[in-house]
């Protein structure tokens, strides 16, 4: 290997930052094993020295569902459109909690890896991507509980079940887009750490989790769809519970918005990634 003629060896060019340089996808692929081990590390470290371990993946959405059922379902009497309110809420909480956790982890991913980023080169994109993918494991566990709940209430998913992965991907793309923005901002402005829980709290209520998007006036649905999580949540209900609140304007606006978030996030991240080591 070492004796290969120099001309055949890969050449790395190091130049001052060019923001319009393309993202090196090939290199990202070369580092896929690192991605795997980072995800695996995240999982392992997260539940180290905890008593309940992976049960936490269920506890968070489950108890939120209980609280929502009591206060919104029972006391406030919010309509769940013919579906038992607990299932109505839980089917939305499963993707939502994935999103909330993925955004939180991703926005802290660069700061967490500070000691490594200042000492080792690897494609920085690996860090937020690993954070977003790690959440998928928790999501799968919570989803299994959702299935059990549906069985309990005797609800059979619709034949549209095969489009569910699309909504999962939409949720992941949104998480990554937001995560890229916030992780980059977090490197420079540590305010982000405090702002994220706050942001997610607002976002929770801007998403039809405790209520149905039918409460939003028809004319506003397109605008409402600019929150991609609205489509993800409605999509889950549409596929699993057979409720028809997923309108075309809502979905189109959401996909459009998720695309914008992801592309702008990638651009912003990429433009700044070469200075991370100097600022962190």
């Amino acid at each position: 290997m070492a004796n290969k003629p120099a001309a055949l060896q890969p050449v790395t060019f190091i130049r001052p930052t060019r923001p319009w340089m393309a993202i090196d996808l090939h290199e990202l692929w070369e580092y896929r094993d690192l991605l795997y081990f980072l995800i695996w590390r995240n999982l392992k470290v997260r539940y180290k020295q905890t008593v309940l371990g992976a049960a936490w993946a269920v506890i968070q959405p489950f108890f939120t569902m209980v609280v929502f059922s009591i206060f919104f379902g029972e006391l406030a009497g919010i309509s769940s459109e013919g579906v038992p309110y607990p299932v109505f809420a839980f089917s939305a909480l499963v993707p939502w909690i994935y999103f909330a956790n993925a955004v939180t982890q991703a926005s802290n991913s660069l700061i967490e890896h500070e000691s490594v980023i200042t000492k080792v080169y690897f494609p920085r994109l690996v860090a937020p991507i690993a954070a977003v993918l790690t959440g998928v494991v928790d999501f799968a566990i919570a989803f299994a509980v959702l299935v059990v709940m549906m069985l309990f209430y005797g609800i059979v998913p619709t034949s549209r079940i095969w489009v569910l992965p699309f909504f999962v991907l939409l949720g992941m793309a949104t998480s990554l887009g937001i995560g890229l923005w916030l992780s980059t901002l977090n490197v420079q402005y540590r305010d982000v750490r405090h702002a994220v829980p706050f942001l997610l709290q607002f976002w929770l209520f801007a998403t039809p989790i405790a209520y149905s998007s039918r409460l939003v006036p028809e004319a506003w649905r397109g605008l409402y769809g600019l929150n991609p999580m609205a489509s993800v949540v409605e999509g889950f209900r549409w596929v699993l519970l057979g409720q028809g609140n997923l309108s075309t304007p809502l979905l189109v606006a959401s996909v459009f918005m998720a695309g914008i978030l992801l592309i702008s996030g990638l651009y912003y991240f990429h433009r700044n990634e070469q200075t991370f080591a100097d600022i962190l």
Partner: protein
Amino acid sequence: MSEPAILVKDLSKRYRIGSREPYQTLRNAITVSVAAAFRRLSSSALASPNGNAHQESDPAFIWALKNVSFEVQSGDVVGIIGPNGGGKSTLLKILSRITMPTEGHAEIRGRVGSLLEVGTGFNPELTGRENIYLNGTMLGMRRSEIERKFDEIVAFAEVERFLDTPVKRYSSGMYMRLAFAVAAHLEPEILLVDEVLAVGDIAFQKKCLGKIGEVAKDGRTVLFVSHNMVAIQSLCSRVIWLNQGKVMAEGKTAQVVFQYLKTSFSSLTEQVWANQTTAPGNDQVRLRRVCVRPADSSPSDPITMRTPIRMEFEFWNLVQGADIYLYFQLINNQGIVAFASSPIDGSGWNARPSPMGLFSTQCSIPADLLIAGQYRVLLSVVKDNYYEVYQLDDALVFEVQDAADLRSGWYGEMVGVVRPLLEWTTELIESQSPIELSEPVDSISRER
């Protein structure tokens, strides 16, 4: 001639003072940009004194590297030396793509492995086995590659028994060995190493050096930053000397190291502290004066290998009845203690309670003992034969010059820590023909 493995052209890197850009808060950023907008509005007619064009000389910025150019041929082992802040680490950070240059460019042919700090990326919660995989992939290895070298890495690190123990329970030596083992098995075509030898015990350092030497023998390119001139001289064929971000010299190891040591050395042969309250020391003892000089001539005369040397110390004893004495270590420029000495023979006030007051103490170093080179004096004050009450690093720094009359026509490098002039005798036991000597030669003494 083939293309160089590393080509660096006019590489420059500018940092904000403090070496890292301070992170801002959003409020700051908003305040600054609003203020800037107002400034533009109010002074659009006037030339702004803080425009970007002035960044070149702006004291808030520092050029960690400025127009650095060099080439490294494939298979070379090149040392990078220079004082702290000279730009060595910045250069390695740019070449390993951790940070980007501000200007200029570099081209690197082949896979780069960098070892800027041992053990980065280790997670204390994970076991040794898990960390090998995590750290290995982080350094750019594929999983299959790690699997292939796994046993070798474990054997090198000598941690077989603790593979499934979280590394937070490792001793620091084990931790270091494991970390270096992972990095050392990276097998890159170009290896960038920064000061790994600053940590760890002697056995570990030997192991590291051995591994780096092995890599070099394999025909791979190594760039090696170190303050350890012995390591640089034993490993590197060429040396680049960086100072204040610029290449001061580049060339054969012996020459450049010699130049570097010559200019980086400034002697400090006398220090006097007249004011007792601010003098170095503490509430038990304070120093008044330290001095090193030729014993028999003017203090400003040079000290050579043939000069008897006198060390003079004055100190205030501030504790009535204390049993204190001075102790010094003479450290050469390779960090080796040539010798240490204290007035242990019971002369003067040693082993007797001293009254409070100003004391003077001298020590003579005979001629023909020290080898040419630079020495630093680490001065300690010892109490009750046991406690170190106070210590002063680099109390004195001086140079012992080579003495021409010792050379007798031979100009090679003198090895060793000391060079005592010993008595030699040589006798002819039996002479042989063809020349019949009339009388035996009884004694020949040689000086070198």
